[in-house]
């Protein structure tokens, strides 16, 4: 019998190269530019794709192994949580509304990210960045799945979680995250990576994940904490992809600098506007608070981000144009956003409420410059109405920003008593914006943004009614018909928390009883 020669094991580096870049080749039957048609038109010049550094050197077989182990742990925790009725241990049923916002507005973005990275992973010429994008694409799909599985336990016990994908496609406030991501993945692959990997994942992600996950920990939601941890190790890989992509573009050609700078300006601002939802969650929706939005902004944006842009200065990159306005906004945006959802709560798919007196005091303490002066008064006024059984809901539709699609709630920098207005004309029509930064985004790509699907305008065009409704005369309660189209049960999925089934159920499970208030 022949003695078999023992195969030599490859070293880690060699193995990585063999299993990733060496699987790529230059096409000869077809022109490379035809095979990769999307990575030149944005104007980014790449001279040497081999200069791309792969910081993680992860091969697919190792990737499956790590992710499989993480999944085993996560699903063990989810099972235990379900078997022990973990939802009974949360601080207060109000907390679940933060999860509703997450499954409605954040999880669908994970799925969009999966699609976007799959596209980028096909269309870059360089094999290194293709492999990194493909792995991230799988990560993002896994994040969507683990989030859906974790939150499905809550869906059995609380309203407002049963139809998140339909809502994501239809509801006015979910058009904010939806349009953000559709804007990103309808750009070219380099803009997509700058938008998602750098501006969002690298610069802003801590402001998304830390508040939600530490909020979950403080409020007794161990299932959500566990999916947070499970995603966290992927996030660090994603952030590294973001910074690597930026540095690679900047090092390859000086002509890339102004293009990248414009994308950073745009995507920082778009990401910041999107985070208004997180700011509100952090300051108003967590019964046990972690830190204020302002504190989180100071820690994760002002100090960490400040250091980052100092580092990028050597490439000729300056901080994003909206930076100072975003820093000023830390005193205001959470209050402005909560005020919005409080008054349009009958048209959303989660509950809102007036903070309790000790929570108002917490807000005063955390926002000494703005809360008592500008926001406490209106909350107390609404609270008084509610005491008199006249809970106020705003029955008329708001004006929206053409770019971020948020109702025009943001005030002028330096004057929190005045809404900020910006307007332009394009091809004979008027367009309105919440800020100079959103207006500038429009100016660069007006042909893209004249197509914005603005929920309020769509309602008036008759596009958001069920099929049995005549859009020209929708009857005596158009809002009711729109809710029917959204698939939201009025008063059950939305409205004031105090009058909600969520509240009365939760109290009943804990053995507390109270008369259910009318949800007007």
């Amino acid at each position, binding site marked *: 019998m022949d003695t078999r020669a023992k195969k030599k094991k490859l070293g880690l580096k060699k193995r990585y190269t063999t299993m990733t870049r060496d699987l790529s080749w230059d096409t000869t039957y077809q022109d490379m530019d035809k095979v990769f048609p999307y990575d030149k*038109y944005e104007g980014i010049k790449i001279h040497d794709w081999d200069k791309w550094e792969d910081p993680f050197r992860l091969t697919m077989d190792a990737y499956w192994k790590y992710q499989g182990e993480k999944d085993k742990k996560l699903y063990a925790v989810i099972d235990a949580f379900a078997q022990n009725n973990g939802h009974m241990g949360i601080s207060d049923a109000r907390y679940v509304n933060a999860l509703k916002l997450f499954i409605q507005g954040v999880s669908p973005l994970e799925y969009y990210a999966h699609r976007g990275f799959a596209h980028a992973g096909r269309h870059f010429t360089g094999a290194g960045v293709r492999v990194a994008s493909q792995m991230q694409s799988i990560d993002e799909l896994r994040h969507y799945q683990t989030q859906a599985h974790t939150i499905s336990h809550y869906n059995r016990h609380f309203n407002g979680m049963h139809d998140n994908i339909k809502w994501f496609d239809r509801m006015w406030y979910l058009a904010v995250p939806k349009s953000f991501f559709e804007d990103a993945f309808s750009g070219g692959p380099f803009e997509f990576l700058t938008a998602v990997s750098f501006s969002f994942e690298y610069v802003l992600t801590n402001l998304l994940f830390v508040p939600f996950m530490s909020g979950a920990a403080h409020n007794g939601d161990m299932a959500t904490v566990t999916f947070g941890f499970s995603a966290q190790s992927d996030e660090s890989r994603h952030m590294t992809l973001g910074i690597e992509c930026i540095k690679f573009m900047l090092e390859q050609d000086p002509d890339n600098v102004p293009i990248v700078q414009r994308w950073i300006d745009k995507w920082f601002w778009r990401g910041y506007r999107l985070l208004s939802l997180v700011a509100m969650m952090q300051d108003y929706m967590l019964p046990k608070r972690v830190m204020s939005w302002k504190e989180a902004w100071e820690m994760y944006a002002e100090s960490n981000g400040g250091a980052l842009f100092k580092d990028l200065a050597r490439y000729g990159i300056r901080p994003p144009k909206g930076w100072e306005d975003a820093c000023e906004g830390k005193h205001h945006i959470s209050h402005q956003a909560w005020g919005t959802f409080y008054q349009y709560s009958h048209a959303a798919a989660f509950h809102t409420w007036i903070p309790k007196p000790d929570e108002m005091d917490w807000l005063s303490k955390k926002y000494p410059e703005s809360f008592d002066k500008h926001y406490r008064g209106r909350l107390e*006024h609404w609270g008084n109405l509610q005491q008199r059984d006249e809970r*106020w809901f*705003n029955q008329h539709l708001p004006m929206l920003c053409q770019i971020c699609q948020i109702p025009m709630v943001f005030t002028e920098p330096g004057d929190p008593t005045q809404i900020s207005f910006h307007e332009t004309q394009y091809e004979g029509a*008027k367009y309105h914006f919440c800020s100079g930064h959103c207006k500038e985004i429009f100016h660069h790509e007006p042909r893209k943004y*004249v197509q914005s699907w603005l929920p309020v305008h769509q309602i008036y065009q008759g596009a958001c009614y069920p099929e049995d409704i005549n859009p020209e005369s929708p009857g005596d309660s158009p809002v009711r018909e729109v809710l029917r189209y959204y698939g939201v049960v009025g008063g059950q999925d939305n409205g004031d928390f105090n009058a909600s089934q969520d509240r009365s159920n939760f109290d009943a499970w804990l053995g507390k009883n109270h008369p259910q208030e009318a949800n007007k």
Partner: protein
Amino acid sequence: MNAVNMDCMPTIGDYQFPARDSEDKFFGNWLIYLCWDNHLMYCAPFCVPLPTNLPFGALVRDVLPMLFGEHPEFEQIDWQRVRWSDSSDEFLPDFGKSLAQHGFGHKTLIRFKTPALEGSRGHIDNKQLAF
């Protein structure tokens, strides 16, 4: 408008699509945006479809109370003293003339200020409120 950097979007081919909110899509109405300056109880200005021949007086008499009437200061407004502006200039409305006769158009923003009542410094029930 900064015409210098207008529309520098690179595309992979012909890229022309109709504007989604053009005037012809609203059943003969214009969308009009209405803002009561400094009154932030209403989180944002309103967007309403209005007939182009609506007299300005009807806007004040019928539309504004429907939109803003729940604000505690609304009833105290002295309409003679109200200052009106569109997105660029102040104007003096003629209550008998229509929106079209005022030179407004689809997606015009109309703002009004009520000098004695500046929501953010209003007093209701002897208590200082801010909204």
